[in-house]
């Protein structure tokens, strides 16, 4: 019941992994460039937080491959709908949210389409993107995603729904209820659990008495798969398979356990030196998803040092541009505090 995927790091073989997954060299290069942008953006947000300009950052560093790999599968599929969580800034960018919207959303300036300044981290929902990220209450997106998937099924649509959450979120009763419900109705939903072995400071062994969360899927009657979540291509592959399974006549949900790392403190409010050892941090850094993809592409000669430098410069330029623009953007008018509480 629990076909735990083996760790098969996407390495250079006869046919490079990404091509056998149907991705062209250019597509993967573009994806890499976007991951560079994500990193530069994340670093900038952290810097702006230190300057008191961005109230909160939930750094995505270490889970980019998971977040972006899922989004790439969803985006190339074309009929997916996502219920992301707070560490999913990269997912949002891959789905098409602009750097500018991301930046003003983080500062709280006027004009983002997700929440109009009412929420942070681009929480909310936008007319422009197939995703809902209502709150940061850990667990509550899960049964909502399941309900949404049921709605799609009732309406005869072939949408597949992704819901992201962390190892911490797996402890919520809501997670159990959502997985159970999805199993009963064989709903087209992919439970994407980013396991970085930490819920803020609480290590995995204080969160659960098991090694692999994917093992729990058997208790709901659907497959659970362990994936190296720092390997973009493995994530992409597993997500594609889950999408196919969701549409299968005998199919239904999949639980993807994406083994990821957390390279930064939990959020900008956190100080992880209180609870992480330097060795632990170093281990994590060795699995930096950006570095892994870089090594893969360099190994194949698809990426060169020059091209890499170019991507980094472009990313910096773009992030500089949106930082300036966002800093000059107006604040939401206080009148926006009121109204749009009830649908008319």
């Amino acid at each position: 019941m629990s076909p735990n995927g083996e760790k098969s790091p996407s390495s250079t073989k006869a046919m490079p992994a990404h091509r056998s997954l149907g991705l062209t060299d250019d597509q993967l290069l573009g994806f890499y460039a976007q991951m560079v942008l994500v990193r530069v953006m994340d670093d900038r947000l952290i810097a702006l937080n230190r300057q008191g300009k961005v109230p909160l950052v939930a750094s995505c560093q270490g889970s980019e491959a998971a977040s972006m790999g899922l989004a790439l599968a969803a985006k190339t599929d074309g009929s997916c709908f996502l219920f992301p969580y707070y560490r999913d800034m990269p997912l949002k960018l891959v789905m098409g949210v602009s750097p500018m919207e991301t930046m003003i959303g983080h500062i709280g300036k006027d004009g983002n389409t997700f929440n109009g300044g009412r929420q942070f981290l681009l929480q909310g929902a936008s007319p422009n993107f197939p995703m809902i990220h209502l709150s940061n209450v850990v667990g509550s997106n899960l049964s909502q995603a399941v309900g949404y998937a049921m709605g799609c099924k009732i309406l005869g649509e072939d949408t597949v729904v992704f819901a992201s959450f962390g190892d911490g979120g797996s402890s919520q009763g809501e997670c159990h209820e959502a997985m159970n419900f999805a199993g009963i109705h064989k709903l087209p939903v992919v439970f994407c659990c980013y396991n970085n072995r930490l819920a803020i400071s609480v290590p995995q062994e204080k969160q659960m008495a098991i090694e692999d969360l994917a093992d729990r899927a058997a208790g709901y009657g659907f497959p659970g798969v362990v994936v190296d979540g720092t390997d973009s291509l493995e994530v992409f592959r597993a997500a594609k398979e889950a999408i196919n399974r969701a549409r299968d006549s005998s199919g239904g949900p999949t639980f993807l356990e994406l083994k990821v790392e957390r390279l930064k403190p939990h959020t900008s409010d956190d100080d992880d030196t209180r609870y992480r050892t330097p060795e632990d941090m170093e281990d994590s850094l060795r699995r930096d998803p950006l570095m892994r993809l870089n090594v893969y592409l360099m190994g194949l000669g698809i990426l060169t040092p020059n091209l890499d430098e170019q991507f980094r410069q472009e990313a910096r330029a773009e992030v500089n541009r949106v930082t300036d623009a966002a800093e000059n953007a107006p604040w939401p008018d206080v009148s926006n505090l009121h109204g749009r509480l009830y649908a008319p």
Partner: protein
Amino acid sequence: MTVKSTIEAIREAMREELAADPRVMVLGEDVGTRGGVFLATQNFIEEFGEHRIIDTPLAECSIAGVTLGLSFKGLRPIAEIQFSDFWWYAANQLVGEASRVHYGTNGYLSAPFVVRIPYGGGVRGGLFHSQYIESYLYNTPGLKVIAPSNPYDAKGLLKSAIRDDNPVIFLEHKKTYRAVRGEVPDTSYTIPIGKAEVKRPGEDITLISYGLAIHYGMEAAMLLEDEDVSVEVLDLRTLRPLDNETILESVKRTGKALIVHEASITGGVGAEVSAIIAEEAFEYLDAPVSRLCGPDLPAMAFAPTLEDGFMVNTQKISDALLKLAAY
């Protein structure tokens, strides 16, 4: 027009809306083959099929969360929480999440669903089958909360709730299900959410209530006729938004107000109604705004002696009215 019980009127409202709008659906524990433990959804699964009438696992948090997710997709689910006593597990999805959908997305998304919740005591249900929960809901911006007292209102208001584009909590007093009967049109009609009803005009005191207690209030008002006290009875019907206009218009006229409800007094709907009157009708008042409410106990106790002691009744109300009349 046919005489129907409250539960029949509720069933009819849902049935009509299910028939009229393919987006309407029902989910909850035992709502399928069983037809609901109070038979509110009797025969629905046969008529509308397993895809629209869904028996859920025993899990209130996800009943609410799945309902919310369905509403995001444009369906119009009606969820049933089997007894009010079990709504607490659903609090996060209803109060925490659903109430903030429209506001938190700057108006882009909405959550058009209804959660029906049987509540209230007088049915020998003890602490965990009798709860009044309106004090935890009417104070929630972003929700609408309805509590009808009779079959006619139940049908018209439930239909409005189903058609409303917001999350609506529909509180059904269990004791009214079979005990309260009345004329109900066999055809479709709606009653606007947010409008109180003057059940009985009067001049000396305004009695403000809702749900089962309205019936005791009407009886007490009749008794007071013998004492030459003219009592106006207001049925709030909607607890959020409160119909301040109707409340104030009446109290400004009578100068005296008695608020009656079975839920515990502290922080109940009566507290807010009293505060509104204090703020807006101070100069019209001839007596203290008074409340006759359930005692500050966790819920209805089980033994009949204790249950009777808990409940509001005609006698208690007429005593309170007489005291106010004499002020």
